[in-house]
């Protein structure tokens, strides 16, 4: 039973299901990550300019001890599964039409988001490594988190990179969210228009939310 389920998940449809499901979970992570990060900026009830709420949040997460490491491993597995499957699919898809069309024209169903998933995905992977090196694996962050972030993101080059990446996430999600529903088998004429709108709105909220943090440190902080 497990073997046949494994085979099924390794098929084209199975991998699509896993890609969609991991995508959903990663969106969930992104939302909580955004919620935590917004504590770095003065938003009534959420964060403050001194970063005290953010530091408290970091302490709170660390209080889970081994639990936090477990969660991090889970998260890592999610990312790895999502990325490995996506890379494999992209490579196979490239192979599936070795001889291309001389003249190619689509019918407008394809979007900027859908057509650039592999590009935005690859950029996000590179960024993910940089991001982990910047904060997760830098001792400075763990000494005084909020102050360290403030120092990093008030450097224009860093801030610009973080702003640009927020846009990339937005483009990725503009297709990803709607697409994940289809992949896990949810599609209904009554709900599909709502899914498209919700997906784009969510992409915009996540992009603007994450972009706000470097913008704040670049222009409004200190």
């Amino acid at each position, binding site marked *: 039973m497990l073997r046949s389920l494994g085979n099924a998940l390794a098929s084209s449809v199975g991998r699509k299901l896993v890609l969609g499901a991991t995508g959903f979970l990663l969106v969930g992570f992104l939302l909580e990550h955004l919620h935590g990060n917004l504590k770095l900026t003065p938003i009534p009830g959420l964060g403050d300019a001194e970063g005290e709420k953010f530091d408290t949040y970091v302490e709170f997460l660390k209080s889970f001890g081994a639990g936090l490491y477990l969660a991090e491993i889970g998260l890592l597995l999610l990312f790895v599964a999502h990325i490995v499957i996506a890379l494999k699919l992209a490579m196979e898809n490239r192979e599936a039409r070795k001889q291309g069309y001389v*003249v190619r024209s689509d019918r407008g169903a394809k979007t900027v988001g859908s057509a650039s998933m592999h590009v935005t995905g690859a950029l996000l992977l590179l960024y993910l490594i940089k991001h982990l090196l910047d904060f997760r694996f830098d001792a400075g962050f763990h000494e005084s988190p909020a102050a360290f972030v403030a120092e990093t993101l008030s450097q224009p080059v860093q801030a610009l990179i973080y702003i640009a990446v927020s846009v990339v996430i937005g483009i990725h999600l503009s297709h990803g969210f709607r697409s994940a529903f289809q992949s896990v088998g949810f599609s209904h004429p009554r709900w599909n228009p709502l899914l498209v709108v919700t997906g784009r709105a969510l992409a915009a909220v996540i992009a603007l939310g994450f972009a706000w943090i470097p913008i704040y440190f670049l222009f409004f902080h200190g």
Partner: protein
Amino acid sequence: MSDESSGMHLTLEIWRQDDADDRGRMETYHLDDVSPDMSFLEMLDVLNEQLISGGREPVAFDHDCREGICGACSLVIDGKAHGADAETTVCQLHMRRFKDGDTIHVEPWRANAFPVVRDLVVDRSAFDRIIARGGYVSVGTGSAPDANAIPVPKDRAESSFEAAACIGCGACVAACPNASAMLFVAAKIAHLSHLPQGAPERDRRVLAMVDQMDREGFGNCTNHFECGAACPKGIEVETIARMNREFLSAALRER
């Protein structure tokens, strides 16, 4: 509409390839006096007559019913499978959709799983092999059953019928940026699985047909939805989501 002097003058850029091993190339042809009332295939017939009388090889292309029901015709016209018209096969496309002086590009379906046999003809037997793996239902072979012996809810009958409109032409594969066959396979699964007659093989069908689809070397669907937009029979991409569901539950139930 055709003016008295002559019909349209067209420049045709057509893919020519002697056989599967030939590299192939686009060749240019000029055609005068094309009636706007001709179908696209009739226009190609005229071109071929012209080529034959000039002692040249006619352009090979697939066609059969010429009334939009068999799925044999399969041309990519100016980059679009079956041409620009919505829900129209090439055989139902008319020259009045083009303008005098137009240059028209004609290519075969492009996908590794559909190798070119000659010129515009591709080998679509991959689809036949997918059907052979599960696109059937088991029936008793006694005397003919009574009509309406098995009640079928109306909405089920309709959704099954919509999926059954698939003529297996392969435009979904041709139009998909990834050369994926999921719309075709999903339609073939749906039209049987939505009916009680298709229930006995339901799980086996979806697993086997997806397996064969993967073996044939089609690409993977990434939800561009170009297939649904290109389908001459208007099969909805929702059908693919349904196949994904069906596949998951079959995989979970499998022993």
